[in-house]
């Protein structure tokens, strides 16, 4: 069994050597760091209302200006990063865990289970994502948990199908056949042997998925159907900015740019990870 | 005296790589006359592919012509424009490639492809299709008119190779290049294809440059043969003369190691020991020296020239100079 810690080190070094991967690492690192330290580094309280300072443009005291309730935009942007990750990370890891399990079951288990799970995957995928999210929100009401749930549910098929394909491929490989002939149980085979091989591919998927998830949360918040105010989400910033777009355009910029940065960062990271983990795909870059 | 169709004259070709120049072809000289079948024998890496690319001028970006000429009907092809080369390809010079499974476009019907390659003709599409069907019939494809609408994956490997031959001969070329056309097929198919090729050649009188490492086929099909090793011609001449009386150690070893040659059962199959030299880092002297069982001191220092020993029989080996002291 490969030493996973040194393998992780090799992967990270490989990513860092690629300029695109390095920028991705830096951007993601910055976002994660600011999200972790958000409560300490925001210059103002992100939810503190201060009517007399409302709708001011960017200045030295308020780097990105203030919104219609006098809240400091910059602070809200930083806190928004924390909110974004609070939604994205559980959703993605949850989807990955569930998708991985279902996918391995589909690939390794009996044919009827496979057919059934594929049908489920394809059905979920046949709903246009936002429409599905809107339908759920309509029924259950907007909240952070709803967003996490919806985002997770729509992502499961992605991981599921990839895990299934990998499992199917590995199923007939020699070392798996050897294990089976020695009587290893399905749980052992799946957990100890298949898993490490599949995780790499899924990690790449996750990195590429996080931006989608962040965008979905922001989108729902923008529509007023995501996290509830006054929680600062990048999408909520966009919502406030849009409502008064002529008077407070900086809100739109403040909400939009972080999303673009986050998306770029995670996408670069994901692409670089993919090139490192599977050099075969490199030729089509 | 039949006129010369293709003359390769001192052709030297290299590939520019980060490790330096890969000297893929060095002073290659031989010729093909009209209606003649010339075979090229050699193992992988001997330069056959580079030779074909040079004749057709379908070159890789890092290929460089360092020396020599490729004369077709008297004109040096290396000096020809892209337009002129394009006019030759598929009309005066045709080629059948080695791998029948990948040689046709998978999403266009066979009929359409055979019509496309007649793009120089001013005949109507119907006439072109009729001609295509006729050619398919010549190579032994049953029910050709119907099969024109089918796609490559609906044909077996052997049939695809026949289609490739049909396509190559459709324009009645002066020269057909056959690059190991039967290597990817099993023995029975090989026999059928070779026989068909012989029939067609007798009818059309085209010259054939037949590349193979299957000595039996070469002996059966070709009039003359050129033996290549690691980018150089080591022996050439009449096919019967070469096989009965090889004048180069490499040729001799090839014949001895050929399975078709064995007169008695052997417990251990004979091989030629050693490996093909690195083309970017050539040893001095004779190219075959390292693997030759009769190498002399002179072989390490001087490159033996390709010289005519008898009428039409040439070889590049110092052993043929035995009587002359170094």
């Amino acid at each position: 069994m490969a030493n996973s810690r040194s393998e992780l080190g090799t992967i990270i070094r490989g990513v860092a050597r690629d300029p695109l991967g390095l920028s991705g690492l830096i951007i993601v690192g910055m976002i994660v760091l600011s999200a972790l330290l958000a409560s300490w580094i925001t210059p103002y309280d992100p939810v503190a209302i201060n009517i007399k300072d409302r709708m001011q443009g960017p200045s030295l005291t308020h780097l990105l200006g203030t919104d219609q309730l006098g809240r400091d935009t910059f602070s809200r942007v930083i806190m928004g990063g924390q909110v974004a990750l609070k939604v994205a990370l559980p959703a993605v890891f949850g989807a990955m865990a569930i998708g991985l399990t279902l996918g391995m079951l589909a690939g390794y288990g009996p044919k009827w289970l496979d057919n059934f799970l594929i049908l489920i995957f394809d059905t979920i995928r046949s709903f246009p994502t936002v429409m599905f999210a809107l339908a759920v929100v309509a029924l259950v009401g907007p909240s952070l948990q709803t967003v996490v749930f919806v985002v997770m549910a729509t992502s499961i098929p992605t991981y599921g199908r990839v895990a299934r394909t990998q499992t199917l491929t590995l199923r007939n490989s020699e070392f798996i056949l050897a294990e089976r002939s020695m009587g290893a149980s399905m749980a052992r085979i799946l957990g100890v042997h298949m898993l490490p091989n599949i995780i790499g591919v899924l990690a790449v998927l996750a990195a590429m998925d996080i931006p989608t998830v962040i965008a979905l949360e922001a989108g729902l918040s923008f529509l007023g159907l995501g996290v509830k105010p006054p929680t600062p989400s990048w999408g909520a910033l966009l919502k406030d900015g849009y409502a008064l777009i002529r008077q407070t355009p900086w809100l739109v910029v403040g909400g939009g740019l972080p999303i673009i940065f986050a998306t770029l960062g995670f996408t670069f990271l994901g692409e670089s990870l993919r090139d490192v983990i599977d050099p075969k795909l490199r030729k089509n870059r | 005296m039949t006129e010369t169709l293709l003359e390769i004259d001192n052709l030297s070709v290299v590939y520019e790589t980060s490790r330096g120049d890969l000297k893929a072809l060095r002073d290659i000289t031989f010729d093909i006359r009209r209606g003649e079948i010339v075979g090229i024998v050699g193992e992988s890496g001997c330069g056959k592919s580079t030779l074909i690319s040079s004749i057709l001028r379908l070159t890789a970006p890092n290929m460089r012509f360092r020396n020599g000429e490729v004369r077709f009907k008297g004109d040096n092809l290396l000096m020809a424009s892209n337009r002129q080369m394009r006019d030759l390809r598929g009309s005066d010079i045709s080629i059948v490639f080695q791998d029948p499974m990948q040689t046709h476009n998978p999403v266009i019907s066979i009929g359409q492809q055979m019509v496309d390659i007649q793009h120089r003709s001013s005949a109507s599409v119907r006439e072109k299709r009729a001609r295509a069907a006729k050619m398919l019939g010549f190579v032994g494809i049953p029910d050709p008119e119907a099969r024109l609408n089918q796609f490559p994956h609906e044909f077996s490997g052997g049939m695809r190779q026949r289609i490739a031959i049909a396509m190559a001969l459709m324009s009645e070329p002066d020269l057909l290049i056959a690059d190991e056309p039967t290597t990817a097929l099993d023995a029975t198919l090989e026999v059928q294809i070779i026989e068909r090729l012989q029939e067609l050649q007798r009818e059309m009188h085209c010259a054939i440059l037949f590349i193979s490492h299957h000595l039996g086929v070469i002996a059966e099909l070709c009039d003359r043969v050129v033996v290549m090793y690691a980018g150089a011609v080591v022996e050439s001449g009449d096919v019967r003369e070469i096989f009965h009386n090889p004048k180069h150690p490499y040729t001799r070893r090839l014949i001895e190691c050929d399975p078709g040659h064995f007169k008695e059962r052997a417990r251990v199959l004979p091989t030629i020991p050693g490996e093909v030299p690195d083309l970017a880092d050539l040893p001095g002297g004779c190219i075959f020296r390292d693997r030759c069982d009769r190498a002399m001191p002179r072989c390490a220092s001087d490159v033996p020239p390709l010289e005519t020993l008898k009428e039409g029989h040439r070889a590049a080996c110092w052993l043929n100079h035995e009587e002359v002291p170094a």
Partner: protein
Amino acid sequence: MLKYAVKRFALAALILFVAVTAMFLMIRAVPGDPVQIMLGPRATPELQAALTAKLALDQPIWKQLLIFYGNMLQGDLGIDVFSERPVTEIVFQQLPHTLQLIFAAILWSALLGIGLGAYAAAHPNTLIDRFAAALSVSFVAAPAFVVALLSLLVFAVQLKWFPAIGVGEGLGDKLYHLVLPAFAIGLSWVGYIARLVRASMLEVMGENHIRTARAFGLSENRIVMVYALRIAILPVVTVIGVGIGFLLSAAVFAEIVFARPGLGKLVIDSITTRNYPIVMGSVLVSTALFVVSTAIADLVNAWLDPRARDSV
């Protein structure tokens, strides 16, 4: 080909069937009395009873399901509680606006994307190729609705080059109003399609059958445009089919941002008024649209690539 078409549409029908069932069960799974939720606190008992009967909520679940399927197959998606008009009518009235937007976005992004990708493949590793590659990655990164908002801010509000809201009257004006929204939702696709086509073309151009085509003296034009592109484009066809689903989602945002009528606006408005029949109807129609478009994409793929006809 026909056999494949039948099989493919059968699969689409199956998926749609499962999706509709899932949708139906989701609605019924919500805690609380749907009638009360829909009508709100102002509901009189008579109104509640009437609606309960209309939605057949007093019947056992499986019967409701059957009634639902029956209605659906007849094109009846229910009645809008507030306007008393059939949901089908309301939804299909808004659908064309969304379709126009999606179509415009696909058209420009596919054309530009294929052109860029083919050009990059024909001139690999030049400055333009690398520049286009960097641009592609960046474009793919920005989510559609963020691009929509930013382009609204820059091109409509600040620069005033394009109108900020509405659909416009008359063909020319309508096209003028389409530019920004179609640009916004198509932008990420240009990059994606360009990279796909480039990778695909490079792979195809390296294959042996292209060498054969050259060996027979076919013109480079014909080789690239017909022999290579026909194969290289196949992944794009599938991608566009899947893209319709993505574009539907993006169109929702574009309609809100640019205040355009369409399915998106309909759904959002209906959510706020808790008008469930409309929400469900819209979701069902958009899902059906997506399922059909992927099926059509697969059919086009099979038409272009005969090798695909043997698999479903």
